[in-house]
């Protein structure tokens, strides 16, 4: 029973962390057909900015989190303006933006490395202590992560389903030409999506670093996981991505418990490869639906 609770806690936490960064990726792919390989860099950026805001500037935690999200959304916006917009509609967009964002991610990580050094650091934005649930300790940090993630998911879902912006985003993802014929300024929509996704990545980066510490390349594995979640859900499927994130988080927690931490990622990847061979369009089929 305690083991189950333990697994549940770590699985839900992992899932929450993954969900926050994955929905951003799914939104970007859904609207632009773009795999944002700079996501890893954005995760690290968020983590480091939050730490820096608290350590060097002495800002309170909520303000630090907001600063990190602002930095993330600025970086996301820059990626659109500098890389995606010049090649929009051009030949081989998918390949070129993939390579360009790899380059941008690499630059971002190197700059972080230059500014903050290669040694691992602790995330300052973190709650200490916890509460006992029976025999199991529920750290406040995990509860905070889960609560924040849930709040973010609800906000994003509400935005997508209820707001004018959300309808424009969904329309753009479903049919770019038709959206333009309705008067949707798709470039501004793209910019908004990249900024939103950058902010979500930064938030996810704070969560990740609060559990495993800060490193300039801390985003690499989480980014691969986020992409895997997108792939399993079907690229561009936002609600599927959120659901899959929690499923993968739980699965990872179980695998970690049974086989040990060092094999968790490899086994997860093998499972995903198997899933893809079984269902090439992802578990949730090929309908690209941007909606939560």
């Amino acid at each position: 029973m305690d083991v189950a609770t333990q697994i549940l806690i770590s699985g839900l936490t992992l899932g929450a962390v993954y969900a926050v960064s994955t929905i951003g990726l799914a939104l970007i792919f859904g609207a632009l057909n773009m795999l944002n390989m700079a996501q890893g860099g954005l995760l690290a950026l968020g983590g480091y900015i939050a730490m820096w805001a608290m350590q060097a500037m002495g800002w309170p935690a909520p303000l630090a989190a907001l600063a990190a999200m602002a930095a993330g959304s600025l970086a996301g916006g820059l990626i659109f303006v500098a890389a995606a917009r010049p090649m929009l509609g051009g030949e081989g967009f998918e390949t070129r933006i993939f390579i360009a964002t790899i380059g941008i991610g690499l630059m971002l990580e190197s700059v972080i490395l230059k500014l903050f050094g290669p040694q691992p650091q602790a995330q300052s934005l973190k709650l200490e202590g916890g509460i006992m649930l029976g025999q199991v300790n529920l750290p406040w940090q995990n509860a905070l992560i889960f609560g924040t993630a849930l709040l973010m998911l609800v906000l994003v879902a509400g935005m997508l389903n209820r707001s004018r912006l959300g309808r424009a985003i969904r329309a753009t993802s479903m049919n770019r030409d038709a959206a333009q014929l309705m008067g949707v300024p798709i470039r501004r929509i793209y910019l908004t999506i990249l900024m939103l996704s950058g902010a979500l990545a930064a938030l996810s980066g704070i969560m990740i670093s609060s559990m495993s510490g800060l490193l300039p390349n801390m985003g690499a594995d989480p980014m691969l996981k986020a992409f895997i979640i997108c792939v399993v859900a079907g690229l561009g499927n936002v609600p599927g991505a959120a659901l899959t994130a929690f499923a993968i988080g739980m699965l990872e927690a179980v695998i970690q418990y049974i086989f040990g931490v060092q094999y968790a990622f490899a086994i997860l990847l093998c499972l995903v490869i198997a899933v893809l061979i079984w269902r090439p369009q992802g578990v949730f089929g090929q309908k690209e639906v941007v909606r939560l």
Partner: protein
Amino acid sequence: MIRSPVRRDVVIALVLFLLMLAVPLLTGTRYVLTQLTVFFIWAVVASQWNLVLGVAGIFSLAQMALFAVGAYATAMLAYYIGLMLPAAMLLAALVTVGVSLVIGFACLRLKGPYVALLTLAIGQVMYLLVVNDTACFTTPASGCLPLFGGARGFSRFGDLGFRDLLGSKWYVGHYYTGLVLLLAAQLFCIAIIHGPLGLAFRGLRDNPGLALARGVSRMRYQLWVFGLSAFFTGLAGAFHAAHFGVVGPTAFAFAMLLFILAMIVVGGLGTTWGPLIGAALLMWADEGLREVSDWREIGIGLVLAGCVILFPKGLAGIRLRFSQGRGQRPDAPPAPPPHTKPV
């Protein structure tokens, strides 16, 4: 057809080959020759990846994984079975072809971005399995050795025999081996790009409907290119192992994948000579920037992003555009016939 592009490219390849043949006679510097040997290796890897990525349009990121398979297979065949290195290298290249076909069967049914992520994941799985394996398979004098060498990898699995043959000048032997390997790989590229496979892919790109109607099966052709190019990729990995005498998990490194991707992108994706131009340029720049090496990563990132954004066709593409401006364009695809839209 005196000025056919095939003939032109083969002539260029042979002239370059002859020039490079003479290099060891002009300079005896070990440093220059070993640097060039390493260039040959990466040029082969880049040119073969370019076939997959730029010609066949398969968005595979498994290139370094395949390279590593070639290297590991060579080391393991020599270490465990005691095969002579040249034999081990050839066998390893065939093993790489086998592995690539398995990956191809799993991936090629998927759409572009899925292929990229899946191949990336496959490479990562291989890396994690090698590194995290700590169970001893044998225990030589140097200590515990896992089946795939673990985090330390393999060493002392023999050499190509040039030390006995040429003594202290053994690296000249490696230079020529690498040169011949590059020549073979480049001739293979020329054959693919100008041959029936290249034609089929150009057809698929310019007019998918028509090509499919003529029975061009995209996946079958892709599998052919993927498998055949894996032979040279594996051989390059095998030669890398033989040249350095060690094989470790760094062969999978993402940084190396990016470095080679940058070579292709700088030179020109899908062009015949782009990858070689890019490989030469990037290795030269990398060498020149050794003093400011902590800017290396930023430099590669900038080169990757900048080139893709500003010169989508790479340096080879700039030259192409230039000659096109003067009214000739050797590689121009045939103009599509008017009104081919089905009624």
